[in-house]
């Protein structure tokens, strides 16, 4: 492969080397069509084991009750809600990259949107486990849905938890449609390339009769744009609604109007970090360095830096308002974050979410694969810590000191956290195995555009 070349005006190229449709098809579909490598099997086995642990933890929770978790009173929400918010946040990158960057015609999104969208779906699937699991009586979870019950009872629409159901449900549906619609032309390519009958049939079914006609392309483009338009407000709405779970309450540390924007920024922040965590090794393993270039990674790092700064500003504002608001309970809640028994998590959060992204002011850090990967993992840790700080640290010491208590996770809590990470990994590995990781049709289109108008690449 040719060495990366960079011109001062154009920046780092979006596609490396001289590519045409054929080379792109070959390189982008190669990982689906060849046999799974040993490394894939190793990762797959590990993820499968973790997923089995998840299944066991879920079974335990359903059988014995949510009392197998570490939750208590006052800390009635624990890992369940932390994980929910964390995963939903991670899911944000996909929609942002797919929809908003598409609308803004950021062409660098093309190489990464497929992976980011898949990640969104899987993250939302992981997240969606928790609202039902954390219930005392999960078998009645459907009561959260407004359906014409013979009892004449409806959900209580003032509760943010009901809004959550709509927010997450809509988000998953639209994200799924968006991802799938984008996938159709590539599934058709896979069908056409299929060497076995089974693959032909399966890809044939999922490609929905795509023939690549001009009409198909016209409709497809219109539909894709439309979905992008639909998905765009969702990027803002989902985490806004999730943040209402906290902001609508009157608990010091939760009851805050900064929460919606601050949650959205945090979500994009963590989503991009997760994309980096997965993309950096995946592009190497799948030989996609020529389409996912340092240009892409650097752009991602810039977004991380920006959202990281918004998140830091959120922290600052929260603390300022707590001090300026002069409510003794609010002041205590924030003092307790920094100096209470969970202070180490708070400081971990600050280190990971505020200090680490500052690295990306430096160009070498934005372009060093190791630095960005480690940073992205740290940011994921930091964002999980942030959710812990919000959920547990606010609850464990609220108004009446008599009810203060500590929260300690149990093995079930930890199994659910690591189990969902494994499940997420499992789904991602399967995705890489059966679906092209880069939107090949869009890449080819981009390749043609770049060839025609090289100056517009930026």
């Amino acid at each position, binding site marked *: 492969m040719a060495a990366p070349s960079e011109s001062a005006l154009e920046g780092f190229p979006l596609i490396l080397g001289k590519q045409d449709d054929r080379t792109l098809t070959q390189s982008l579909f190669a990982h689906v069509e060849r046999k799974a490598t040993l490394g894939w099997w190793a990762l797959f086995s590990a993820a499968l084991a973790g997923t089995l642990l998840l299944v066991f933890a879920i079974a335990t929770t359903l059988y*014995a*009750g*949510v*009392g*197998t978790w*570490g*939750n*208590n*009173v*006052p*800390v*009635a*929400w624990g890992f369940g809600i932390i994980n929910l918010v964390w995963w939903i946040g991670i899911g944000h990158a996909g929609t942002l990259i797919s929809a908003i960057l598409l609308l803004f015609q950021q062409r660098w999104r093309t190489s990464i949107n497929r992976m980011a969208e898949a990640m969104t779906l899987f993250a939302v699937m992981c997240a969606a486990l928790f609202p039902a699991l*954390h*219930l*005392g*009586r*999960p078998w*009645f*979870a459907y*009561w*959260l849905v407004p359906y014409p019950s013979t009892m004449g*009872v*409806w*959900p*209580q629409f*003032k*509760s*943010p*938890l*009901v809004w959550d*159901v709509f927010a997450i449900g809509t988000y998953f549906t639209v994200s799924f449609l968006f991802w799938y619609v984008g996938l159709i032309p590539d599934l058709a390519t896979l069908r056409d390339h299929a060497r076995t009958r089974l693959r032909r049939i399966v890809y044939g079914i999922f490609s929905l009769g795509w023939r690549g006609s001009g009409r198909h392309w016209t409709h497809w483009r219109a539909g894709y744009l439309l979905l992008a338009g639909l998905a765009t407000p969702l990027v803002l709405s989902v985490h806004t609604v999730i943040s209402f*779970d906290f902001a*609508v*309450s*009157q*608990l010091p540390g939760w009851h805050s109007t900064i929460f919606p924007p601050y949650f959205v920024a945090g979500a994009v922040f963590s989503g991009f970090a997760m994309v980096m965590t997965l993309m950096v090794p995946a592009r190497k393993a799948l030989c996609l360095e020529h389409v996912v270039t340092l240009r892409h990674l650097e752009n991602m790092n810039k977004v991380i830096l920006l959202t990281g700064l918004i998140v830091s500003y959120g922290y600052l504002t929260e603390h300022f308002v707590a001090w300026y608001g002069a409510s*003794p*309970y609010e002041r*205590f809640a924030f003092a307790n974050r920094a100096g209470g028994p969970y202070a180490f998590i708070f400081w971990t959060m600050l280190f990971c979410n505020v200090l680490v992204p500052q690295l990306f002011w430096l160009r070498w850090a934005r372009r060093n694969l190791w630095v960005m990967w480690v940073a992205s993992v740290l940011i994921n840790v930091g964002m999980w810590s942030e959710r812990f700080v919000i959920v547990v640290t606010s*609850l464990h010491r*609220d*108004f*009446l*000191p*008599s*009810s*203060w*208590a*500590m929260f*300690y996770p149990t093995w079930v809590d930890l199994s659910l956290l690591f189990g969902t990470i494994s499940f997420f990994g499992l789904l991602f590995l399967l995705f890489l195995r059966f679906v092209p990781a880069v939107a090949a049709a869009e890449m080819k289109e981009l390749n043609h555009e770049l060839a025609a108008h090289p100056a517009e690449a930026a």
Partner: protein
Amino acid sequence: MTPPPESLSARTIVPPSRSSTGHGEASPYGREYWRSLAEREGLLGAGPEFPEGAEELTSVDRRDFFRLLGASLALAGAGGLSSCTRPPATKVVPYHRVPPELTPGNALHFATAMPLGGVATGLLVTSREGRPVKVEGNPEHPDSLGAAGILEQAHLLGLYDPHRARQLKQRGSPVGKEHLLEALTMRAARLQERRGEGLYLLLEPTSSPLLQSLRERLLRRFPKARVFATSPLSEANRAEGARIAFGRPLQPRQDFRGAKVVLSLDEDFLEPRGQKLSYARHFFETREPGAGMSRLYVVEPSLTITGMSADHRLPARGSDVQRLAYALVRRLTGLGVAPALEPLSQAAKSFAATPGKAHRFIDAAGADLARAKEGAMLLAGPRQPPAVHALAAAVNYALGSARGSSPLVRYLSPPAEVETGPSALRELAADLRAGRADTLLVTAANPAYAGFADLELGRLFREVPESFYLSLYEDETAPSCSFFVPALHPLESWGDGRASDGTVSLIQPLVEPLAPGFSEAELLSALIGAPAPTYQLLREHWRAAREDFERSWEEWLREGFIQGTAAEASAPEPKLERVAEAMREAAIRPEEGGLEVAFAGDYKVHDGRFANNPWLQELPDPITKLSWDNAALLSPRTAEELGLETGELVRLSYRGRSVEAAVCLAIGHAEGTVTLPLGYGRSGAERTAKGAGFDAYLLRPSDAPWFGYGLSVERLGRRRELAITQEHWGMEQRPLALELALGELGKAEERLSKLRGAEATLHQPVDYSGEPYRWAMAVDLNRCTGCSACVVACQAENNIPVVGRDNVRKSREMHWLRVDRYFEGEPDSPRAIAQPLACVHCEAAPCEYVCPVNATVHSDEGLNEMVYNRCIGTRYCSNNCPYKVRRFNYLHYNREKSPTERLAMNPDVTVRARGVMEKCTYCVQRIERKRIEARVEGRSIRDGELRTACQQACPSQAIVFGSLNDPTSRVSELHRDGRRFDLLHELGTRPRTAYLVRVRNPNPELG
């Protein structure tokens, strides 16, 4: 879960009308139900040849065996209830002739009493379809006055305890009751030849006239028999003190209603049990803020309920209390108000040196007592030596409170045995060691465990050729005796007893025995040679004792006690020279090396006999908030010196014996002393009690049962995480449980007014004035001692599950009503305040708007209601509740209930399953019951007729419930009181429960 033998469950469903034929006197109504049942349970003659249930076992042939095998497999599928669903083995008759007083679905109340420590406390027991479900105080009874303490209420659960002994055993193997009677009869015959020589009885102290007469009869038959009574928490020192002062053992009885200044020397007179229930009621009548408000000084080693209520409290080592008492006498004579005390002062001279702080305290308290004259009371606790009691008697007499026309302190002849201390046990042990005993009958509570370590009673009992042990449990003493006899619970047997003022109470059974058992009276009567059922013995006794027996018997049962049987109380003059002499003799040991050890009874398990009671084990200790454990209590400073912190395990060594214990820091504890609560560390058959705490009896010597020096504490480097329900002691400068000094009350009016009333809101508050009722509560912190009787009442009334030690450690206790306890001030002389807190029924409830399924909603009358059926358990309501009074069923806490424990459930209250939220309902079931009653009578509910469970149990009447729409109701008055404030008022939740500021009445001299 052990299913009980089917005869047991069968009996509990026996309808009351069943046995109303044939037996007993001809009475048309239900009373004879109990009589004839008692006769059915008869010891001799009427009973079957084999123990209940034994025939099924003995008569199994091959066919039956397979039939049973098949049946039990089939029933196993039906779950734990299987044994309940089997048809009773005995003949049952359906409910076709219902006793006239019984309407299925409506509760019946029976008056009875609970004997403990020689005092019978009058109770009212609620019975539902033949099952006692709730224990309350008898409002007419002089000791209870309608209140019930934690032990009285919780002993209901003892009735249904699945670990209760059910089987009569001889040397560990089951035997029939004929076998026991034969053994007793043969023993008696042999003993009679020797005029009872070699017969030893170790009995529970009792004030029961029946048992006392049986004991007398026994001594007539066996004149050489030796009878001892023992109680691990003996109050013998009180009577001994009276013996010194007055020449005969007398029981002091206080009337707090006229008290102006009270100084308690290690006397916990507000402890919620027995006669102290009436003390609490009367004492708090003197605590109304105002000119006549009384003042309480307390000197004690570890903080108690009384200490929490004190205006001034001095932590002092147990053995220093005596020194301070002597100093007080010096002070009083120094003031010249009580010249008669001069001989005492002389006696106290060489001992009375006190350190500076204590000196100030005693000076001020002495001056205050002197000023109060006949309103002054000096109280001495049972742990203090007799000389201090005698001193207190002399001081009270000299000051005027124990003489004159209406003395506050009177003396009456003790209703129960007085020699219950270690001396009795020492004497018994000496005789046993000498091999003089041939037959031993033990009815005292678990002496092998609760006896003194140096006496080794368990080992000595084993050497007696024939011994009989009567107990509810196969506890630590059971293996040491040749016969183990299961006892009847007080709620399933007949009996009587005296209140602390001598009033006779009758004990009626509420239910047919759940398992075959014996009463002490039955055993004694068998030994006497005239075996008879308890019921018959009781009636014979009273027929002989009272002329009006035939006329009044039912009246007595209905009222629960016999009017006019109170003992004559007098205020004799103490003999001061003898008191002085005793003071001189009661040498105060000079400072010895090492730490002081102080043994103490426990609020929850008492002396250990209630250790198997899950309600009591789970109840947080009123002071330390420790549940499911005891711990070595020491002050933070002493702990720091020893390098210890809460939860650390230490080895306590004292006089050559040692025990491992967890340490718990106790605010307000005296320096240099370690309090060891008794009653834990059980190793008997009581499975609930197992693993809870350590056994302090192992260190308790018989020559110094309460205090001693030379304890050494060795760190083990391990920890035991204690289940402490409240770990934060301070209020963080938040206005939560408010307390003001009497003088500040007027000045604080404006500040308080900001803590109540309407907060600005954008929402239009709901107008409740048009509703018939607007339910509300008021809690007067000035009356609350933190005793936690309300917590147990709530637990019993509302079927609140017990979650166990591990879940309490995870902060998942289910108590709807908790008592918060805060400290302020210096750790060595803190002020403590208790604040009972249940759901405050906010008018603008934060829990309601966040529930996604409408499971918590507001009623028209302002109750914040939980719809268990609708709750899916998001727990958002709990997060949004600023008071954190909502409790969540994290696990299926009710699943593990045994079939008998299920009988204790209140049928008016849903038993909650796993995964639902629950909380205080303001006893909505009681509201609805009263509403029905009122509606039937065509009127509205009257103020005061409706009382919540917590309100009803409260000894000091701190809790008031009623409707705010009635401006004359008590609760309206309290809501209008100048001391009223709302908890977390600024949140705008508009709570319906209001609090009234506690008022201290400090002595200006002490600042």
